[in-house]
């Protein structure tokens, strides 16, 4: 885990003081809501349908128990006793009072946390693989690179008023668990001649016009990285479209001028930027990397006792292989049947913090699928962890199954939404509540967005649902065939939309078609890709 030094702490403390001053000016009426808006939006504070919503950054989704407990404390003290983990590996609080906001940020700063750049047209929280440092297939831990980028992007003077928000993801495994190519910039760490560098993808994204990022550079050396990214951003800041927010993301620029022309302009800019001395020495990456050294694993070969059948099911579904012999990665699903995807009560957050402290070297991760990970659990402790989770109603054994739904807050909270997402997620999960039935369907990633902005990643869902407003009535479009993984693809709309119950029925029919047509170990996605839309369409609309 990265630890702040006095410089990092000073930056965050200064931000709290600055924001306190801005809020005081607003409360005293010295500035109008219009003037306050750009200031609060640089700090994750949104005015939503019912109240202010505050988004707290969890850099690359990594946090320790002390920080996790602080998130519980904030839910208890400043909110209604729960928090919502987001697809950006952050947490949101939905019921924040403006006059308490600066105190809240001060408490966060005391555990090296902040809300800097969690909103606004700037470089947002850097996301990464939730299994970083634990995955058997990674070539390096991607988080030091993400931390390097976090620092470089914090209050970047040139890139704080970009055409639109800007999201960067860093991964280091062939299996992509972070939807890397659906980011404005996606970095995949690779080795070339023994040296670590980054393969750079630019111009991916979801929203109204989903795009898969093309590769712009196959290998950027570690000590060129910031210059290269700076060049990527400068070309975008100068030429990205403004005026129409739907055409302002970098994906539109890269698409309109073409990847080759964009690559050429970046190369030209890089040749100049590289002369400015903005890249820290490799010693800085090494300094950061030292914080992410592997924990002190014990030599253990103990396997868990599988005799408790409920435990065995959870073990098979939610526990993943670790690179260290005798250890495993535990996924905590925040998707109870009928619950709100990504929500956790303060008591549950405390339980997860305690379990991490006792059994996972004090570390937790937030995943883009709105779940929590205990990255380093000794296999001999898995039963104890499961019992602790079960007692807190956190042992849902549905990881990557149809009820492990990603959903945006939708019209229940969000001022941008056209339709509700949460009730649809609840109805689908309830329809498929039977775990044996879910497990029979296998991996099936279902994702729901309540508007075209696609915060619920519906484009990347094996099954995606998009809520739209049709003449004042909520209507749900269904897409099939998306993926946010290494087999990245954008889902296609299958036909006319449905009402809330209709879309649940259509999803069920699609799973029945899949069960009839699947061959071997095919997932829903594989069968769909092999047989195409027709058989599904016939069953749903026929």
């Amino acid at each position: 885990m990265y630890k702040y030094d006095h410089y990092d702490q000073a930056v965050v403390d200064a931000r709290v003081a600055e924001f306190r001053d801005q809020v005081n000016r607003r409360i005293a009426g010295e500035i109008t809501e219009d003037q306050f808006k750009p200031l609060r939006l640089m700090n994750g504070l949104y005015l939503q349908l019912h109240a202010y919503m505050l988004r707290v950054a969890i850099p690359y989704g990594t946090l320790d128990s002390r920080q996790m407990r602080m998130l519980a404390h904030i839910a208890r003290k400043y909110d209604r006793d729960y928090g919502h983990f987001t697809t950006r590996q952050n947490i949101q609080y939905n019921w924040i009072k403006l006059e308490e906001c600066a105190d809240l940020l001060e408490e966060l700063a005391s555990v090296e946390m902040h809300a800097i750049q969690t909103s606004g047209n700037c470089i947002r929280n850097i996301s990464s693989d939730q299994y970083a440092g634990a995955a058997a297939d990674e070539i390096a831990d991607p988080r030091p690179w993400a931390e390097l980028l976090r620092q470089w992007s914090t209050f970047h003077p040139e890139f704080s008023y970009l055409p639109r928000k800007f999201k960067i993801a860093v991964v280091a495994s062939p299996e992509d668990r972070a939807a890397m190519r659906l980011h404005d910039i996606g970095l995949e760490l690779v080795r070339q001649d023994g040296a670590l560098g980054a393969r750079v993808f630019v111009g991916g994204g979801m929203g109204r016009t989903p795009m898969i990022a093309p590769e712009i550079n196959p290998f950027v050396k570690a000590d060129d990285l910031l210059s290269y990214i700076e060049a990527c951003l400068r070309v975008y800041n100068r030429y990205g479209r403004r005026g129409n927010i739907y055409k302002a993301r970098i994906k539109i620029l890269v698409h309109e001028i073409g990847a080759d022309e964009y690559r050429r302009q970046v190369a030209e800019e890089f040749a100049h930027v590289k002369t400015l001395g903005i890249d820290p020495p490799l010693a800085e990456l090494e300094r950061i990397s030292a914080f992410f050294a592997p924990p002190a694993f014990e030599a253990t070969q103990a396997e868990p006792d599988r005799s408790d059948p409920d435990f065995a099911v959870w073990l098979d579904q939610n526990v993943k292989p670790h690179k260290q012999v005798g250890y495993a990665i535990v996924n905590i699903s925040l998707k109870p049947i009928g619950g709100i995807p990504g929500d956790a009560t303060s008591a549950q957050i405390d339980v997860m913090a305690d379990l991490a402290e006792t059994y996972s070297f004090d570390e937790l991760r937030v995943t883009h699928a709105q779940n929590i990970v205990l990255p380093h659990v000794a296999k001999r402790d898995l039963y104890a962890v499961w019992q602790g989770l079960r007692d807190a109603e956190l042992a849902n054994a549905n990881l990557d199954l149809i009820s492990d739904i990603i959903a945006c807050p939708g019209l229940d909270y969000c001022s941008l939404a056209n339709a509700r997402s949460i009730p649809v997620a609840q109805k689908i999960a309830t329809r498929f509540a039977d775990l044996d039935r879910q497990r029979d369907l296998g991996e099936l990633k279902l994702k729901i967005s309540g508007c075209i902005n696609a915060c619920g990643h519906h484009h990347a869902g094996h099954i995606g649902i998009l809520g739209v407003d049709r003449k004042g009535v909520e209507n749900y479009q269904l897409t099939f065939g998306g993926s946010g993984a290494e087999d990245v693809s954008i889902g296609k709309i299958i036909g006319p939309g449905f009402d809330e119950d209709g879309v649940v029925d259509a999803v069920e029919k699609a799973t029945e078609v899949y069960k009839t047509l699947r061959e071997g170990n095919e997932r829903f996605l594989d069968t769909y890709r092999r047989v195409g839309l027709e058989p599904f369409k016939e069953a749903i609309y026929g």
Partner: protein
Amino acid sequence: MVEFRYRTDEVTEQPSVTLDAFLDQSNATAVRLEPDDDARALIPFLDRLTLIEVAFPKYRDGRGYSSARILREAGYKGELRAQGDVLVDQIAFMRRCGFDSFAPEASLNPDAVQKALSTYDHVYQNAADSAVPIWKLRHG
């Protein structure tokens, strides 16, 4: 009207001309860049310019930040002025990008500007100002 100026030389009296006008008859010494003007077009002429005014019609349009850095990186030493929808909370970013005078459309409180400029003791990245990035402080 220039409200804040962080230079000691004389204010240039010449009115600024548009980029197109400047490129047509280049004996002017003051130019105004709109957000979609290419700042690079001025690079051959920097040594005879005393004022470059960068327009910010809307605070949200951040192209002017890149224009400023391009001009400073090319060695421009004259006055670099931000004009238009310039807000107090942007001035620190603008100073870091190389602006050294400000003509905000809506008048700003000098105390608030001073406070905004002194909020942060340290910065994480190199820019057009003389601030030493934190990584350099760490590694000497």
